């Protein structure tokens, strides 16, 4: 084990410090902290900090022992530092922890009933070392399955080298690797082939342009792959942590193309995640409002309009210019108190105002979705804030 550069005992100088601070007694001895024997790092599911656990062997004398733990040029959360005796937990008593002023250090006061060699576990939260997740996916030519490679990117900017360290993550079994200060390492932790994927085209009336023909640049419909984190889908060994996912596809030349990248959202086991690969400009969706008639107008005694209904007619034209069929998800938002008059395709309600239509569009086909609905009880004056979306 190489000597520690930054977390180390400061025995010599502190002998005098403790002599002053504690007024050395006959049965009190100072114990220096020896080199670490074994280090483990538990990477959090968040960026920026990790729990380090290291084993050290202390030589304790009968009576009170003071153990100094100090660090330089590393960021340790002092309140996170823990010491646990491993060899004789029933005999060793941790009496107190002292924090010297203006120093990155602490002193444990330990009582030992006899002279002992004690293995202890020291735990602390160390900043600027973490493990982020990156994924690489390769879809087949037909876009029915993909292989997902999960990488752990170990970033050590903590100021402390580890030669080596056993890393524990939520991504699978622990592994041992050296990692130097200022070093970044990318390690393949799992490779899951044949994960079924569903390709989804989504046109959301709230966010997409309604007249793409008038757009100066080509309008693309977002295209995503959906996959399920479950055993039946060749996944489901652990929750998918958020991370940049780069997606590729096999081509017909024995090579691959890059499809795009997205951030995988946190996906618990059993959950679904969608990865936006890019946009399709071969699906064209145009929406027009043809009519919005005001009906059932109610007035007050002064003749002022108080409440009315609106009967809306809209049409959504969908065109598939591709050589193959697609399923297009149309998301339509109808805020407020509305009721259906005639809607030409079946839909599911995501919530009271969000309608989702799954439209099968054969190759080179055009379809029209007509929406005829009434928005009821629109307040013309007071309470107009109740006309829109109500969560």
């Amino acid at each position: 084990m190489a000597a520690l550069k930054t977390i180390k005992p400061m025995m010599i100088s502190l002998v005098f410090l403790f002599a002053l601070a504690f007024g050395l007694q006959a049965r009190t001895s100072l114990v220096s902290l020896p080199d670490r024997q074994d280090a483990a790092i538990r990477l959090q599911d968040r960026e920026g900090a990790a729990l380090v656990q290291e084993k050290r062997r202390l030589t304790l004398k009968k009576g009170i022992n003071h153990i100094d733990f100090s660090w330089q040029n590393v960021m340790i959360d002092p309140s996170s530092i823990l010491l646990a005796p491993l060899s004789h937990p029933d005999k060793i008593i941790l009496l107190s922890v002292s924090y010297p002023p203006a120093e990155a250090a602490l002193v444990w006061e330990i009582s030992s009933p006899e002279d002992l060699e004690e293995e202890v576990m020291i735990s602390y939260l160390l900043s600027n070392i973490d493990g982020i997740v990156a994924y690489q996916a390769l879809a087949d030519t037909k876009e029915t399955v993909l292989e997902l490679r999960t990488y752990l990117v170990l970033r050590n900017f903590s100021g402390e080298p580890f030669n080596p360290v056993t890393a524990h993550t939520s991504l699978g079994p622990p592994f041992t690797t050296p990692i130097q200060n200022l070093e970044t390492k990318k390690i393949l932790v799992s490779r899951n082939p044949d994960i079924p994927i569903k390709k989804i085209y989504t046109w959301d009336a709230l966010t997409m342009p309604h007249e793409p023909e008038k757009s100066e640049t080509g309008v693309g419909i977002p295209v995503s792959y959906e996959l399920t984190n479950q055993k039946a889908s060749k996944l489901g060994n652990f929750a998918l942590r958020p991370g940049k996912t780069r997606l590729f596809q096999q081509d017909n030349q024995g090579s691959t193309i890059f499809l795009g990248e997205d951030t995988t959202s946190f996906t618990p086991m059993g959950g679904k995640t969608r990865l936006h690969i890019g946009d399709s400009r071969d699906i064209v969706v145009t929406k027009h409002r043809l009519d919005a008639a005001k009906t059932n107008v109610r007035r007050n005694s002064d003749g002022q309009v108080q409440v009315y209904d609106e009967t809306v007619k809209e049409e959504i034209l969908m065109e598939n210019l591709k050589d193959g069929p697609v399923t297009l998800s149309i998301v339509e938002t109808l805020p407020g108190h509305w009721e259906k008059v005639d809607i030409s395709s079946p839909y599911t309600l995501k919530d009271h105002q969000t309608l989702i239509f799954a439209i099968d569009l054969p190759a080179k086909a055009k379809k029209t979705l007509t929406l005829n609905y009434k928005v009821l009880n629109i307040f013309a004056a007071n309470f107009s804030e109740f006309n829109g979306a109500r969560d």
Partner: protein
Amino acid sequence: MPVRKKINRLLSGVLILFLLPLAEADAKIDLVTLSDRDAVETTIYNEADLTLVRDKRTLNFVKGMNRLQFSWANTRIDPTSLSLDIKKDADKISVVEITYPPGTKDVGVWQIKAAEACRAPVEITYFTSGISWQAYYVAVVSEDRNTSDLKGYVRVTNHSGEDYGNALTRLVVGKINILDEIAGLAGLDHPYGRPDLMGGEPERKILLSKAKQVLTEARSMAMDAAPARPKEIAKEGLSEYFLYTVEGRESIPHGWSKRLLSLQADPVRVQNLYRYDRDRFGDAVVRFLTFDNKKENHLGETPLPGGEIKVFRSTGPKGELEYIGADTTKYIPVGKTADLNLGETLSVKIKPLVMAYRKENLAFDKKGNITGFDEVKDYEVRLSNFTHTRATLEYVENFDSPDVSISRISLPDRFKKTDQDSITFTLELAPQASETLKFTASTPRGDRKWQP
């Protein structure tokens, strides 16, 4: 390091590959094997500054751990994209990890475990920025303006800092989703940023001065054997994208551009369309040249990538041309119509005039206060074609109220209510012909909009 300099010269490039035994890990880098590229493939995207480079090499591995160092300088490679795949004996050889060593920049070191000493082909892939391609079209419209000869080109430009000699060149038409600019990732001091710097954002600076230096370092262009004919470009649809593969191999040194013919169609039927739409173009007639991307029009095999198009008109048998205008097309899917805006024109006139204005159906409340009325306008639209060819004229009017109603339409078969507040008239006019359209627009104002 003299060895390194020598390698640099040998490759005449800036990518360097070392295979190192593990035992040398802590020693100075010693070169064990340097393999030349077997082949290189570049897949270039046009809507993102991104090129996927696939570098194929054959390497000798010793039994046990092998270290393979990949380093680069003055190029715009995204280190997080580095990937190595073993293409043969993958059960005997496995890539354990890639390390970005401390105190270095533009270096990645793979740890590769081999069950036995062997020789195996590998593919190293990475993203670089600085290589781009654009589509570019030239249309020569016939004298009668009814057809056009259309040529499409792709122009590849390499400002990546690296020469890609003898490379299989593939171009992707498509709109990919990108989270970070590759040029930004290439400029980071640490490939994945630092945990203490909020995802490394402050480091995401593009090294402009470096890029400028790279841009000015044009090198002599490799001399390719002159082809006897223009190279073919094979086209294939993949996912939502289109892949153009240039026949054979291309050498595009850093700093150079190359233009290749990608499409030739003749004759393509074109339509001369003149539009008036005050909301989009102001009070002017704008000339459009439209053509369908369809098979019956000698097109329609592939979508047309967006790009600049220059339109000329043939004015004589000896190649005399007249420049008509230029536009930038957007992506034209198969089956759709390209709509080229060639700018304002005076040779077709579309002039809408309000010839009568009335306030009708005045409404009052119980106290006698005015509460609303109908605003009625009689429109007269005068259309004239001063050109020498038949022309299609399109007049669009957008109203300020969805409650507008249109009546007394003079040419109802030319009329379309596009949506609740806009209308379109489309008609064809012979050369030197004129026509007048008439209609009445009635817009309820105030309380009148509540009354049936």
